[in-house]
């Protein structure tokens, strides 16, 4: 027994040290070749399809993609602390608010790229070319087809109407998508209106906020409430879930795009920017340009049910069936600007 234990320990140490040596090699090679071969990506997008896109990029350019996955907040903190020594070339987040925060913290740099500037609609990119949207997602209302007539739905603002008392399902305010929605309401309607909106929604909630967006949809079908505020791409994922029950659940709800007669439905982007101290700046630009190429955009929409930012790429069948919609053209940097205020208002309104 003892011998086995010792053998195991030695084996582990060897493996770990092996890793260590490999790491050293990696580092010396990155230090030597700062101009080509690698791009270091800090990303909050933990989606499997992204791996495929990275592989496609590697095959096409020969530039190796090295990835650190964590939440955007933690990545921003990490970049801040690493300072000039940060190995990060590209920062990818799943919302515009975090990108504009990274910009405010001086972690990104302006880049020149005709491709990015021309192909991406202007409201989906930073005014100083510090970050660019890659995919879009809409914050929509999912409703129970058997209990709610879509004619009764109209705007986010209408959700405070008494007729929705005890009917609304929505997740916690710690979620960035809710924070961005609130930030857009602050930007569009002002703080006071935003606060009374939050209080109205809280008063109409079917239950205390919990769970994920998918859980809100399930709760609608289970009858806990009638309508849920969720992100569009989760519905696409549920419709294509490996779990037959989830597919059935998703089929029982309808999708409503709010505010079609005024400013449009709130959208957010997942986006990318080049790090201020990027050791491989050229590669980073090539990398981001590749992410909005037709083939990469195709993968984003097909595998993750997001709306492509590239207008020439058609959304995948499932989300195309939901129809076209008018989107809120609010400059997305406003989301970052009002994010903190949004959280404060949530707390004051008691939106957990």
């Amino acid at each position, binding site marked *: 027994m003892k011998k086995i234990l010792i053998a195991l320990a030695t084996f*582990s140490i060897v493996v770990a040290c092996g890793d260590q040596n490999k790491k050293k090699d990696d580092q010396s090679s990155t230090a030597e070749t700062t101009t080509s071969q690698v791009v270091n990506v800090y990303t909050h997008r933990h989606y499997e399809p992204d791996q495929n896109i990275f592989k496609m990029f590697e095959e096409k350019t020969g530039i190796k993609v090295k990835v650190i996955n964590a939440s955007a907040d933690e990545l921003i903190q990490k970049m801040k602390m690493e300072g000039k020594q940060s190995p990060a070339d590209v920062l990818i987040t799943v919302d515009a608010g975090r990108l504009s925060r990274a910009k405010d913290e001086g972690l990104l740099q302006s880049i020149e790229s005709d491709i990015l500037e021309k192909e991406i609609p202007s409201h989906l990119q930073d005014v100083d070319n510090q970050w660019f949207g890659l995919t879009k997602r809409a914050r929509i209302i999912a409703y129970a087809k058997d209990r709610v007539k879509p004619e009764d739905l109209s705007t986010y603002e209408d959700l405070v109407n008494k007729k929705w008392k005890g009917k609304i399902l929505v997740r916690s305010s710690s979620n960035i998508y809710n924070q961005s929605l609130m930030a857009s309401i602050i930007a569009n309607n002002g703080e006071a209106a935003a606060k009374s909106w939050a209080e109205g929604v809280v008063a109409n909630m079917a239950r205390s906020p919990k*769970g994920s967006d998918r859980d809100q949809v399930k709760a609608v079908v289970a009858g806990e409430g009638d309508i849920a505020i969720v992100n569009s791409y989760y519905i696409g994922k549920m419709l294509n879930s490996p779990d037959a029950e989830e597919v059935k659940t998703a089929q029982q709800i309808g999708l409503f795009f709010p505010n079609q007669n005024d400013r449009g439905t709130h959208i957010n982007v997942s986006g990318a920017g080049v790090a201020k101290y990027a050791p491989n700046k050229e590669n980073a630009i090539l990398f981001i340009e590749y992410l909005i190429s037709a083939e990469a955009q195709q993968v984003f929409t097909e595998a993750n049910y997001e709306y492509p930012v590239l207008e020439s790429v058609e959304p995948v069948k499932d989300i195309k069936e939901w129809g076209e919609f008018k989107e809120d053209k609010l400059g997305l940097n406003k989301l970052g600007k009002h994010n903190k205020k949004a959280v404060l208002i949530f707390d004051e309104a008691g939106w957990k």
Partner: protein
Amino acid sequence: MKQAGNKSEAFSLKTRIKRLKRDINKWSVLTLTIVFFLALPIIFIGVELFSGPGETWGHIVKYLLPDYIWNSFYLVIVCSFLVLIFGVSSAWFVSRYDFLFRKQMEWLLILPLAIPSYIVGYAYAGIFDYGGSMDLLFRQLGLEFIRIDIMNRAGLAFILSISLFPYVYVSARAFFLNQANNLLEASKMLGVGERKTFFKLMLPLARPAIVAGLVLVLMEVLNDYGAAKYYGVNTFTTGIFRSWFSLEEPQTAVYLSALLILIIFTLILFEKWQVRKIKFTSSKTNSTQIQRKEPKGVMQWVIFSAVSLPIILGFILPVIQLIYWAVITASTVFDMEFIMISLQSFAIAIVSAIITVFFALLLIYFSKWSTLTTIKNISRIGVLGYAIPGAVIAIGIMIPTLALDKWLINMLAKVGVDSGLIINGTLIALLYAYAVRFLAVAYNPIDSTALKVDNSIPDSSKVLGVGNLKTFLKIEFPLIKTGVFSAVILVFIDVMKELPLTLILKPYHIDTLAVKAFEYASDEMVMEASIPSLFIIFTAMIPVIFLNKLLIKK
């Protein structure tokens, strides 16, 4: 002392300094060095406190703090209760009685620890969900499904208890296995019944061990983020993340962390206080194994069910749910890469477990040899890392290591070498962080077994002229082996499932299973997270079974 007049106070201070001078020796210096090394990140977080909280502190106190305090308090009380029932009863039954599948259950009872609690949370939500496993089962049976809502505060307390009770089980069992026999015999000879022996004799004597386990559970309960967030329960830790990231105020987050540390420190002091009341050492002849009884009649079934219940709730049910998800997602998720990642996770976990246990041993014995009680108390600061959310520790680690890195880079630049970060983003920083974070997990079981080694044994060895180290290796280590092995298992499992630290500090080319599971779970792909979670469980099973054999064989 405080009531005493100025004069005598000055006098006592003088003597104190004198005494301190007399007592300072290489062991106390070494202890302080290690404490400083391990507590460095915590100290850095503490220093931040002096810059004051951010401007939203008032807002937090007004709108959020009452909720945080109340929820955390609720969790501490309910979890303590449940964990003690599950942990102590199962530990006593498997040590005292012989019954069907006892041997298997002995190690199965440790395994609930191997599932990250947020995964247990997802699994239970999946079981009771609309369209979930229970719903399907009821429909198959043609019954009306009564949906149980588990996603609330009570549900969270249940989830955390059922996945953390093994801490209490492990330390209580270590005590029962090694210390209980002669006590039991004495009690039997005096004609005391089984029940009375347990409640009047064994339970009070096992208290230090049980409380040591309980403190670990409570630290983890207060520190939980994933499950609490998913279940919509706001605790200190969710608050720390909210103020740090959503409110963009790291200082406020640090303030909340400090409050959390204060609560934990109170718990530790409470533990010390209650252990002191019943300070004892025993078992000069602790090698005799407990004699197991065969329960008769109904008792057989009562005991069997009492032991299998926590296994079913904490391990079998969630694992079945995970396997079901794994089967339906296998085609898209499974990849041979998982084998490689499992090996990496295994290697990292075993190495950090050994390092952490090593540090814990150094701390415990150096401070013991230094004979200064103050040193012993100071050494406890090193334990606090377990109470601090991993993400906060990661920051605490990055501050000093980055400073060192920058210094090294400057030095190297002077000699003309251009280098990147040397410590950050390598395994060194990660292993250091694990040692800081999990020291408590190693410290407590070892300390509680070390307490029970009668000082006369090592003392007589030293009188005979054998040095501290040799005495330790030849005499003390064999006596505390159970505690050491338990510590290795616990740290190993904790590292296997550790997340926030790993995410921030891990090198590029290293992936752990926990990171893989998180990548899916964080994007609401809970089903897809099941395969890496199962790999965590199976990888963790290897040392659990293996070391458990060593424990018993002894």
